[in-house]
């Protein structure tokens, strides 16, 4: 079974989100997603300062199998991106929840990550998808 940390929230499109102490939200793709995609070749992150809607495609992860959009789980402004992934996209494979984070954003309004799945619900979602 893939690794699903309990402190994170998850989207149906396989992003994870972490609420930071300063109110910002860090986003990446789940361990299950990186496992499905296989070895990463390129990662394209958004630009700092860019504003995105919830559900808007704002990053791209490309593996030897496929290129996939990454959707922003909440609306807000991108405040930091993981530039290191340009040179070492494999970090997403090795450490999806740590060094493989994609971008950090400042949510536009009081954001409620509760709309996203918790780890248990995401585990169930993966199970159901794996029909």
């Amino acid at each position: 079974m893939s690794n699903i940390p309990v402190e994170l929230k998850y989207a149906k499109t396989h992003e994870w989100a972490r609420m930071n102490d300063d109110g910002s939200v860090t986003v990446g793709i789940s361990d299950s997603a990186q496992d499905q995609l296989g070895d990463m070749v390129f990662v394209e992150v958004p630009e700092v300062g860019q504003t995105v809607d919830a559900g808007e495609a704002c990053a791209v992860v490309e593996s030897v199998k496929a290129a996939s959009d990454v959707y922003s789980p909440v609306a807000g402004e991108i405040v930091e991106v993981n530039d290191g992934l340009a040179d070492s996209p494999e970090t997403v494979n090795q450490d999806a929840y740590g060094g493989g984070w994609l971008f950090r954003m400042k949510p536009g309004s009081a954001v409620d990550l509760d709309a996203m799945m918790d780890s248990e619900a995401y585990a169930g979602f993966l199970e159901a998808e794996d029909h």
Partner: protein
Amino acid sequence: MLIFEHSRPGRRALAQAPHHSEEVSDIPAGMLRDNEPLLPATSEMQVVRHYTRLSQKNFSIDTQFYPLGSCTMKYNPRACNRLAMLPGFLARHPLAPPSMGQGFLGCMYELQEMLKEVTGMPAVSLTPAAGAQGEFTGVAMIRAYHDANGDTERDEILVPDAAHGTNPATAVMCGYKVREIPTDRQGDVDMEALKQAVGPQTAGIMLTNPSTLGVFERKIEEIAALIHEAGGLLYYDGANLNAILGKVRPGDMGFDVIHMNLHKTFSTPHGGGGPGAGPVGVSKRLEPFLPLPIVGFDGDEYYWITEDVRPQSIGRLSAFMGNAGVLMRAYIYARMLGREGMHRVADYATLNANYLMARLAGAGFDVAYTGRRATHEFIVTLKRQHKELGITAMDFAKRLLDYGYHAPTTYFPLLVPECLLIEPTETETREELDGFVEAMIKIQQEAENSPDLLKEAPHTQPVRRLDEVRAAKQLDLTWKPAAG
């Protein structure tokens, strides 16, 4: 080894040397180059050996079964190539007046007529030079149609997730937003989701039918009615045309525009980067927007239909009329088959796929859409093998090469995990298909008993398994001479 690495100063191969029929002396001095071009200097024998060796390394339809799903790697009859290369066709100058090219124009006119018949579309333009350009043309015409009607608020193209990946890219190239429509468990378009998505913003839908899941879209008439009711148009991606070839016709299903990949369905080898031919067929309402030139016939002479009589045309896609050689092969192929033969191509393409699917299912492999009839291709999923044995679809694919079979398409469509998309085509014999099944059975046994054989495959090819990440990231495409 590159041909350049065989090069030594002073070597010559007269047979390959360019022939100058005339001395050219009126080029201004400023436009002449100062140094010799960097061309390899090799002997004739070196050239022969070099290219013969390269050809032997080629894994091709001429030597092996090539069931690369969604690609239709079928045998291209030699006659098509030979006849397309008759000197009259080959030496014809594209700027020659129509009166001097009546033979060629007549062939192209008849090809237009035959493609209309095969697709059920009332009008055809041959000019798009490849599938991608055909797609672009199709959606550009949809845009031109809405614009001509003053219907400029439509900004969305619907694309089912079982469509070809090029479809969303095409819609974006034409300035549309893409909305993806999910697929239901049986592999059909999710009708509820489609109904939710259709609206006054819908410019059209791009469908591949049969879809990339290797099944026919059963609700196509319902889909067509829904889209047309909302004022949208239907685009047919012709990549899978080999499955239906005149048996059922996109025009009869309600489509407004279709592109055809003549370079896969109609006898031009493909996969090497071209040239291709991606003609488009359209419904009456889109005819005024077709790209030019088109060949017309007044009952006496063939002529070019141009902008003066088609002011609403989206224009020209290249200087001339597409890739003439590919179009000629397609014409000859269609002529040789005739109507009956054309139907037989679709019959055997689907029969071979269904036979292969039944045999693989019988041998214990998991078919992705059980209970559905295969089209000209079908999907086997190796999800179970991945879970139980740690063996991936890629491992199976690489091991197949050792058994002398080109691998099926792997990891496409994205909707099915660990998948092989298998397309045998109509040109394979039953013995060949049985051989493939036997190889798959053996590989399954190896997966259970000696998995390293798969994980390290291929073992018998000129190159071992490539580091795909490095191959994608560190491209090495330019040869440079060693210093000094």
